[in-house]
């Protein structure tokens, strides 16, 4: 039963990773941009929530909508004002630009909030749990996290499959020049993709802030886990990112169970093993 508990905790943790990975996957899929600042965007969202909580004295859950809107607008402007030009210069220049943005965010947060760890206090839900048996305990908050990530992925799937803008996203992912020939303004579209990606990572950032603590330098860790989730699941597969996150989560929880502190190591090893034996990921889209 101890292992059952590990698997359940791993699945719940996977929900959190998926919230970080979904936007990363979307941005790479639509515009082939490797965004090295994605983890820092999440951390930035947590700090924005912290500021709102501090000034309005409300539960961080209620800040979620506002943080998402702020991050979406920020994402759109960043893409239109900077990243589109970096992408014109070339894919490598674009990666470097996101790397620079990551460093700028980290240092601005350091300047504004010090290096001390901060946390978001969501009240009783943080410690509430359902006891299945003596060894299997499900926390309400982790459960809420994975439910949220399933809802987000489902919403994203509906958006991509059923709406005019969503179809334009997928058309651009398939062939950017052909999409332009259909009247799709790719610069606006890229802005929208970044806006959606940052709105999703905002949820991940706030949830991480509630679950654990965060500091200005927390972003790159989040980025690595998110990337591993995306690669394990398979590039371009939405539900693959959730499965990837879950596999990573289970590996980490079990690793920590074997020996405290081994979680990360085992997580990375599982990632490397999948990369070695199935480099296209578990649910890679098969096209062409």
């Amino acid at each position: 039963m101890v292992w059952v508990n590990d698997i359940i905790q791993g699945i719940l943790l996977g929900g959190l990773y998926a919230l970080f990975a979904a936007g990363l996957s979307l941005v790479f899929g639509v515009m082939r941009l490797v965004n090295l600042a994605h983890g820092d965007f999440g951390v930035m969202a947590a700090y924005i929530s912290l500021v709102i909580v501090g000034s309005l004295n409300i539960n961080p859950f209620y800040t979620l909508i506002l943080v998402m809107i702020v991050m979406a607008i920020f994402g759109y402007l960043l893409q239109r004002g900077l990243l589109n030009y970096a992408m014109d210069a070339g894919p490598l220049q674009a990666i470097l630009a996101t790397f620079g943005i990551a460093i700028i965010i980290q240092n601005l947060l350091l300047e504004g909030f010090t290096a001390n760890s901060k946390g978001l206090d969501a009240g009783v839900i943080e410690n509430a749990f359902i006891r299945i048996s003596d060894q299997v305990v499900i926390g309400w908050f982790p459960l809420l996290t994975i439910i949220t990530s399933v809802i987000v992925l489902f919403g994203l799937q509906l958006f991509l499959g059923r709406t005019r803008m969503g179809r334009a996203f997928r058309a651009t992912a398939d062939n950017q020049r052909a999409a332009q020939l259909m009247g799709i303004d790719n610069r606006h579209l890229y802005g929208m993709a970044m806006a959606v990606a940052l709105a999703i990572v905002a949820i991940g950032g706030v949830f991480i802030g509630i679950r654990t603590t965060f500091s200005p330098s927390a972003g790159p860790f989040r980025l690595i886990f998110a990337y591993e989730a995306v690669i394990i699941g398979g590039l371009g597969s939405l539900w693959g990112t959730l499965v990837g996150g879950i596999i990573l989560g289970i590996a980490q929880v079990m690793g920590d169970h074997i020996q405290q502190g081994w979680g990360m190591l085992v997580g990375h090893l599982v990632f490397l093993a999948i990369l070695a034996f199935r480099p296209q990921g578990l649910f890679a889209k098969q096209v062409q």
Partner: protein
Amino acid sequence: MSLLELTDICSGYGHFQALFGINLRIEEGETHAVIGANGAGKSTLLRTICGLIPTDSDKVRFDGQSIGQLPPHKRVGLGISYVPEGRWVFPSLTVAENLMVGAHSRRTGLWTMDKVYELFPLLSRLRQRQAFSLSGGEQQALAIARGLMSNPRLLLLDEVSLGLAPVVVEKIYEAMPAIVESGTTVLLVEQDVGQAMKFADRITCMLEGRQVLEGSPGEISSEEIFAAYFGV
């Protein structure tokens, strides 16, 4: 006023110049074919018109408006639709979704989803199939149908017959009269001179980036075309 006026077009790719002073006028409702051997600059010409290759603003005039600097997506809004060489269908999208993306510009007119299925009945039963699983001929039909979904005033067709079996080419060209009758002006680029002669009101022959012959199919002899085509 002509629908499309090209003045002294000298487009190319980077340091490579492919066109040397092309002048062309296309009247509304006309079907115009550009023929020529590989590397004559035919596709470059179409890409300059649709905006994939920008040029001086005044050098491309559409319905009196200077559009040489306009990006492709804005030219679609004005009514220029380019069906690219190599089809460029969206492989992971279904046939129906490809057509919906074709209508992204929200230009309304005669061509609707039902109408293009009527035009290409073979697409009708493939609606839910992903485009990558289609044959070359089916993909070409889809590319043309998708191009029509923006209800263009000027339809640019690039190498429709390229890489297709003659029977398939015949089948696709069967759709041409309906497109022309709908009032759409067609500018098509072809290596297949026979097809071009059959459908075009006027023909321009290009050789190494220059116009070497222009006229209506009735006026010019096959000897003249042969000479212009090969530059002998």
